[in-house]
């Protein structure tokens, strides 16, 4: 078991660390989006009918022949702006699109071309630079390795659970193991939940044969049943045109069902302008378990049609998925999600560091594998946060008119990550950790400074009441600067101390 734990962990730890960090930041995706589009302020909440009719007017102008329209009213943390997107059938040569709408005049909101928090969040399951689909296939394998590492960890260290409170901190290399144990035991429920629910996303990708086998290889009826369960039946266009209902009327009908105006997460209008047009309404989540989530309306007559079928299995699945995404979490729970995610990052990082430290023999030149381990550890564990700072700096510093600006932001992320690996290679062994931490501190400090200079929404330029997000994020950055400076100071002291002690030991050994 220990063998499996070590290898499942070690082989994948750097990628798992990447997934944990970007996934944890994913709980702040909308906030990052807002930070990266500093030209925009959050919209005022207005009534649902108004939002819907503005959106439909915009879409009728922009993409009248699209197959599907999605409208997300500005009523929630997830949708600070009225947002629309339109999708064509797969074989169409027109390209899909999305836009944020200005509530004052119903036109598209202008903002810089940015990758935003969404791209960062998507990296945790899609990676980047890979053909579509492959990233997800890979990350699900890593997730399985993570799940196995968790299970073997629990099995191999049963004793720790019993004696958790007689935990005694140890010195030196064992301190890393202590940290690894404490973080993983403390956050074990979260880790098990997040990994297994991550695997549930991958069922259709990696475990399709269970459903197919249960249906005796009758894929057609399986697909039909699943679509029915999900409440997303296949709908064919009639070809006859018919006018869409008045959105105020639809909004009234929705409010009558949901009981309140601002519960709508998004509305999907299938085949707008056709006689068979349908409107699917999805509500915001109020908790991980929610029964009534979707409604289906006839989008020509505004009549409520069949609602989602009851299915316990689907509810179990949705509960897992909701727990994973945490969309229902308010500020308090979101903070707990982020802290648990950070505990996960620390768990992976300390495990990797402990492995590298354990192999190290004092008084001996490190082997090539050890150097490689050190570089990978340093370049990943401290390098990735530096790279994310680079990503955020690129958002402020790249010229607004640059072509493919959003792509270049991501290139900047990976280029700065590469630079940290080079740096780790340059200073491997001795000074690597504290130099990396020091550069992390500098990069973290650069973010609020550049923000102050470039968009004038920095500390002292705005107030907590008018601009809470920017003020809080500046304080968080400054706090992290302090933290990494302190860490770097201690690491420097430590990296000097043992070597001098070793020398003394060697000297005394020689004289005796």
């Amino acid at each position, binding site marked *: 078991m220990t063998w499996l734990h070590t290898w499942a962990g070690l082989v994948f730890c750097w990628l798992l660390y990447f997934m944990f960090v970007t996934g944890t930041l994913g709980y702040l995706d909308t906030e990052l989006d807002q930070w990266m589009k500093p030209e925009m302020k959050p919209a005022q909440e207005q009534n649902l009918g108004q939002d819907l009719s503005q959106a439909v007017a915009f879409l009728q102008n922009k993409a009248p022949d699209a197959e599907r329209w999605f409208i997300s009213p500005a009523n929630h943390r997830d949708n600070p702006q009225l947002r629309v997107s339109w999708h064509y059938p797969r074989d169409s040569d027109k390209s899909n699109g999305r836009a944020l709408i200005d509530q004052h005049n119903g036109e598209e909101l202008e903002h810089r071309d940015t990758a935003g928090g969404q791209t960062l969040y998507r990296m945790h399951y899609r990676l980047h630079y890979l053909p579509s689909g492959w990233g997800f296939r890979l990350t699900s394998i890593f997730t399985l390795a993570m799940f196995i590492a968790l299970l073997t960890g629990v099995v191999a260290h049963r004793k720790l659970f019993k004696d958790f409170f007689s935990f005694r*901190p140890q010195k030196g290399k064992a301190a890393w193991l202590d940290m690894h144990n404490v973080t993983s035991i403390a956050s074990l429920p979260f880790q098990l939940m997040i990994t297994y629910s991550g695997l549930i996303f991958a069922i259709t990708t990696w475990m399709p044969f269970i459903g197919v086998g249960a249906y005796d290889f009758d894929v057609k009826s399986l697909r039909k049943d699943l679509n029915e369960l999900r409440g997303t039946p296949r709908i064919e266009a009639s070809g006859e045109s018919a006018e869409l209902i008045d959105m105020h009327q639809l909004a009234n009908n929705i409010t009558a069902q949901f009981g309140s105006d601002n519960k709508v997460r998004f509305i999907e209008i299938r085949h707008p302008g056709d006689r068979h047009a349908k409107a699917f309404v999805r509500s915001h989540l109020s908790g991980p378990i929610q029964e009534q989530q979707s409604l289906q309306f006839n989008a020509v007559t505004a009549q409520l049609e069949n609602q989602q079928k009851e299915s316990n299995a689907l509810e179990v699945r949705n509960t897992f998925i909701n727990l994973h995404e945490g969309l229902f*979490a308010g500020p*308090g*729970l979101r903070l*707990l999600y982020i802290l648990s995610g950070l505990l996960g990052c620390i768990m992976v990082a300390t495990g990797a560091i402990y492995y590298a430290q354990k192999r190290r023999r004092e008084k001996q030149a490190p082997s090539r594998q050890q150097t490689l381990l050190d570089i990978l550890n340093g370049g990943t564990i401290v390098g990735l946060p530096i790279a994310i700072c680079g990503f955020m700096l690129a958002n402020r510093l790249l010229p607004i008119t640059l072509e493919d600006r959003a792509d270049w932001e991501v290139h900047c992320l990976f280029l700065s990550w590469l630079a940290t690996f080079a740096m780790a290679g340059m200073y491997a062994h001795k000074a690597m950790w504290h130099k990396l931490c020091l550069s992390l501190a500098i990069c973290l400090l650069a973010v609020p400074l550049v923000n102050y200079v470039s968009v004038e929404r920095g500390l002292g330029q705005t107030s907590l009441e008018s601009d809470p997000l920017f003020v809080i994020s500046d304080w968080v950055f400054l706090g992290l600067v302090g933290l990494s400076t302190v860490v770097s100071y201690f690491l420097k002291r430590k990296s000097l101390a043992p070597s001098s002690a070793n020398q003394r030991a060697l000297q005394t050994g020689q004289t005796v």
Partner: protein
Amino acid sequence: MFSVYAFILCLIGFFALAFAKTRHWKLLFARKLTERKKHALWATGSGSLIIALLFLKTEWGWALGLCFYAGLLSLSMFAVVFSLSYLENRKPKRLRA
């Protein structure tokens, strides 16, 4: 507000559970940890953990309350273990044996 109380209760609970162990008791007190004190601490610890769960349930209901509970337990466990290792390091040398 109940969530903050629940967090404090979790902290109290884990501290009590930790000090029910002789090793940690000696960090703070010179006297011996009697069996009675041990049981009392254990009861306080588990009691306050349960009350914390009930507090969260009244504020958020079961589904959300359990999410909060899992997060708060992790956080307070982490905090308690860290302060224990701090205490251990602060311990004067003559007491270490």
